[in-house]
């Protein structure tokens, strides 16, 4: 983990819709997931930007089928797992039909890789998604 990583984050293009939607349309969900996590606006102070990013990330998470979750998680770096965990918890805040059950599956797989540490970081990090 370097500070450069987060600098990139805060300067990242905040419109995740724009970058992830083409991948979603092509059904390249894992690519889309990497893009939304890699460009998560953690450093942003604009709530609207964060809410938009949450919406598109949830869309990606819910689009990935249960059987593919493990593969998707396996493709992520440890830093991305931390971001993913943050989105999973935020996703629990805004449940929709069947979403929580699906997010629990994501949680289980992300926990297998990131351990308790990634949950602790959801709680302790000041920069939220």
């Amino acid at each position, binding site marked *: *983990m370097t500070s450069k990583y987060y600098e990139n984050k805060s300067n990242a293009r905040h419109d995740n819709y724009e970058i992830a939607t083409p991948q979603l349309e092509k059904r390249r969900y894992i690519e889309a997931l990497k893009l939304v996590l890699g460009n998560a606006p*953690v*450093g942003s102070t604009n709530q609207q930007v964060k809410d938009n990013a949450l919406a598109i990330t949830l869309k990606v998470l819910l689009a990935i089928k249960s059987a593919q979750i493990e593969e998707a998680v396996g493709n992520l770096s*440890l830093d991305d797992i931390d971001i993913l965990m943050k989105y999973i918890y935020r996703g629990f805040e805004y449940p929709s039909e069947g979403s929580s059950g699906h997010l629990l599956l994501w949680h289980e797989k992300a926990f297998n890789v990131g*351990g308790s*540490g990634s949950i*602790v970081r959801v709680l302790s*990090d*000041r920069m939220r998604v």
Partner: protein
Amino acid sequence: MSQTLTFGDSCAPITCHAWNKDRTQIAFSPNNNEVHIYQKEGNEWKQTNNLVEHDLRVMGIDWAPNTNRIVTCSVDRNAYVWTQGDDGKWTTTLVLLRINRAATCVKWSPAENKFAVGSGARLISICYFEKENNWWVSKHIKKPIRSTVTTLDWHPNNILLVAGSADFKVRVFSAYIKDIEDQPGPNVWGSKLPLGQLLAEFPNSPSGGGWVHSVSFSADGNKVAWVGHDSSISIADATQGKSMIKVKTEYLPFLGCNWISNNSLLVAGHSCIPLLYCHDGDELRFVAKLDNTQRKESGGLSAMKKFQSLDRQARIETSDTYLDSIHQNAITCISLYKGTKANAKKFSTSGLDGQLVIWDLDSLERSIEGLKIV
């Protein structure tokens, strides 16, 4: 491999502990305003003293090995220096900390002529003895600390001090007191060293999270290691341009860290198991878990044992939640038992389960595969 001690019948958490020079006596606080001193007699540990002067919970204890003085600090905003008379009784000397919040941590300097106290008043008091009045006076380091100072450690040169704080920063300060010391020469951390000079500042996390629980200078004083509440372990090296390495671990947060050789770092905390990490070039590598205790078969659990285990884990329901480790609750304090930071042979840990465990690194090295302390 390891030896577990419990003191008296109490299962109260051990807030912190400190050993005397020859490790025949230990001072610890059972999570209240008292400091108990136990002495080893044969194989038994007997309580010899109970230091009661603080009104509120004791937060820090440090025992100066050569001058045989104990310093304690507490939530009641006071610190006391205890000296032992010929009759074995401990008497206090007043310390003028001049703080308006709890004192959180205390450490003697290596030369034992001064000590540092961190506090919730967002400052560090550097205390030294004033003969004329027979008390300890203090000078403050204030800037740029923005929250409670949670942990301190001295550089071996007796001048520099590293402090971790709840504002997610680790800072290296000069704690040079010109009234009692000669002018220090330059070192790797800096050359201008008036009291309070900030020589380095490291964020625990660029995303601004994780208050710092413990800091440690390496034996040569060139490196600083710390652990934060985001389950991370970090090292900054002054000889590498004060560059920082950070590892985000998969464990629960660590509460203590200590160097046991110039490259080996010990960490322990909420996951109840001490871990060993090795600083190797520009990476911090996980080496081993130092506790491979397997779950014991609970054949014929006595009522006494049962209630003791309820007490140790601070739980109220009776379902069995025995952990696969010696410590049954978070480890809050690590100290060296034998050897120095450059070459430690044994260390001790204490925690919320009221146990104190002495770990033998040599026998651990023999029994754990792939464990090599370098």
